[in-house]
C-alpha cells in the first residue's frame, strides 16, 4: 500500500528519495540539475553531469557516496511506485549500476575535475605511490603547490649572489616563509625536482625592500623568487607512543618526515637599492659641470 501522496502521484520535491528521481528521469529525459533542490547534492551533480559520455543511459553518475546508501533503503518492494512492472525492470538495471557506481564512487573525490577525467580515461586502480605522472600533470601539480622547475643547475651559472637587502613572503604548499637572498628553507618533500635543480617559486604574497613594499592580493602577479634545491633528506626519527593505562594497550610507531632544503638565490619584482651605480653618475655629473663653465 503506498501511503505517501507524493509517491502515489509522482510529484518530485525536496523530500523525494533519490531513487524516485532516477525513475522520473528515466521516463522523461531532461537536464538533471533542475529537479534537485537540495543544495549539497546539486554541487556534486554539477561535476558529474558534464563528463563521461561513455555510458549511454541518461542517468547521472553521482560523485557522492550518499546516493548508494540511499538506494540501500529503498530496495524493499513496499517503496516502489504504483506500477509494479516498472519497478521490477528498473530494479535490475539500477542494481547493476549501483554496483558499478559503488566501485567508481570510492575513487572519485569532489575536489579535482582534472583527476576525475583522467581516471575515467585510464581506468587505473588507486595506488598513489607508483602513479606515473605525465609532464602536464607534473607541472599542474607543481604550480598548485607553488613552484616551477626550471631545470638543472649548469656549471657556468652564477646563481649564488651576495646578499641583497630585499625580502619576499613566499608560500609553498601550506607553509609561508619570509625569505631573503641566501637563506635556506626546509619544506615538505617536493616531488618533481632533483637535487641541484633550479626552481621558481611563483606564489609570492609580499615583497619588500628598504625603499619599497608591495603587498599582493593575495599574490603579487609578476614576482618570482629563484631557488636551488640543495637536499632531499629525512628528518630525525620521532617515536609515536600510545598507551592506555590499565587497559593493556601500548603501541610504538617510528616516523621520519621527508624534507627538501631550498637555497634562495634571487628575488625579482622589487626595487633593490643600488649603491654602486648611484656613485658613478654623480661623479660624471660633477665632471660635466666643471667642463660646461670652462667652455662657456
Amino acid at each position, binding site marked *: 500500500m503506498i501511503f505517501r501522496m507524493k509517491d502515489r502521484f509522482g510529484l518530485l520535491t525536496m523530500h523525494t528519495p533519490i531513487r524516485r528521481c532516477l525513475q522520473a528521469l528515466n521516463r522523461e529525459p531532461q537536464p538533471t540539475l533542475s529537479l534537485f533542490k537540495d543544495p549539497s547534492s546539486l554541487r556534486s551533480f554539477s561535476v558529474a553531469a558534464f563528463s563521461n559520455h561513455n555510458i549511454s543511459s541518461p542517468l547521472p553518475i553521482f560523485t557522492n557516496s550518499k546516493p548508494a546508501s540511499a538506494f540501500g533503503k529503498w530496495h524493499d518492494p513496499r517503496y516502489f511506485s504504483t506500477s509494479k512492472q516498472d519497478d521490477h525492470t528498473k530494479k535490475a538495471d539500477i542494481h547493476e549500476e549501483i554496483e558499478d557506481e559503488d566501485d567508481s564512487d570510492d575513487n572519485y573525490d569532489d575536489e579535482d575535475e582534472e583527476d576525475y577525467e583522467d581516471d575515467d580515461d585510464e581506468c587505473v586502480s588507486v595506488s598513489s605511490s607508483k602513479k606515473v605522472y605525465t609532464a602536464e600533470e607534473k607541472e599542474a601539480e607543481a604550480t598548485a603547490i607553488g613552484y616551477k622547475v626550471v631545470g638543472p*643547475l649548469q656549471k657556468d*651559472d652564477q*646563481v*649564488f649572489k651576495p*646578499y641583497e*637587502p*630585499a*625580502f619576499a613572503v613566499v608560500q609553498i604548499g601550506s*607553509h609561508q*616563509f*619570509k*625569505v*631573503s637572498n*641566501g*637563506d*635556506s*628553507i*626546509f*619544506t615538505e618533500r617536493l616531488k618533481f625536482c632533483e*637535487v*641541484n635543480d633550479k626552481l621558481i617559486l611563483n606564489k609570492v604574497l609580499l615583497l*619588500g*625592500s*628598504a625603499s619599497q*613594499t608591495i603587498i599582493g592580493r593575495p599574490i603579487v602577479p609578476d614576482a618570482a623568487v629563484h631557488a*636551488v634545491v*640543495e*637536499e*632531499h*633528506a*629525512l*628528518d*630525525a626519527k*620521532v617515536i609515536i607512543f600510545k598507551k592506555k593505562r590499565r587497559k593493556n594497550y601500548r603501541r610504538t610507531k617510528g616516523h621520519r618526515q621527508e*624534507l627538501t*632544503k631550498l*637555497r634562495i638565490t634571487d628575488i625579482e619584482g622589487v626595487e633593490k637599492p643600488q649603491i654602486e651605480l648611484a656613485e658613478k653618475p654623480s661623479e660624471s655629473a660633477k665632471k660635466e659641470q666643471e667642463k660646461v663653465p670652462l667652455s662657456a
Partner: protein
Amino acid sequence: MALRGVWQLKKLVVSYSDWGGSSKGIRAFMESHLPAFKEANPQLEVDTEMIRGQHPHLKALYKNHNDRVVCVKNMDPEEILLHATRLRNSLGRKVIKLRTRHVTKHPSVQGTWTTALKYQDEQNQVL
C-alpha cells in the same frame, strides 16, 4: 645533496659478501642498478668491497668528514637503489631534530620592529 652547487657525497663504498644469502640483493644490485647509478653521478667515487662473513652495507663519506652506514641485508635491489639515492641526496648533516625550518643570516631588511618604532606616512605624518 649539493651545497651551493657543490656535491657533498665524496665516496660510496658498497660492501658485500659473495657467499651469504643476506647479500643476494646487493649482488643483484651491483649487476643491475649500480652501473646506471655510477653513470648518473660522475662526480661520485663508487667502490665495491668484499667482506666475508658479514652482512652487506653501504658506507657514505661526505665532504664534512661525516660518514653514514646503511645496512642493506636481505633487501631487494630496488630498495638498495633507494637507499643509495637517499645517501647521495643528503648533505653530511648529523641527523638530529630540526631547530628551525628557516635558516638565515640577515633576519631583517627594513629594520627589526621594536615597541618604540613609529611608522610615518609619505607626508611625514606619524601613523
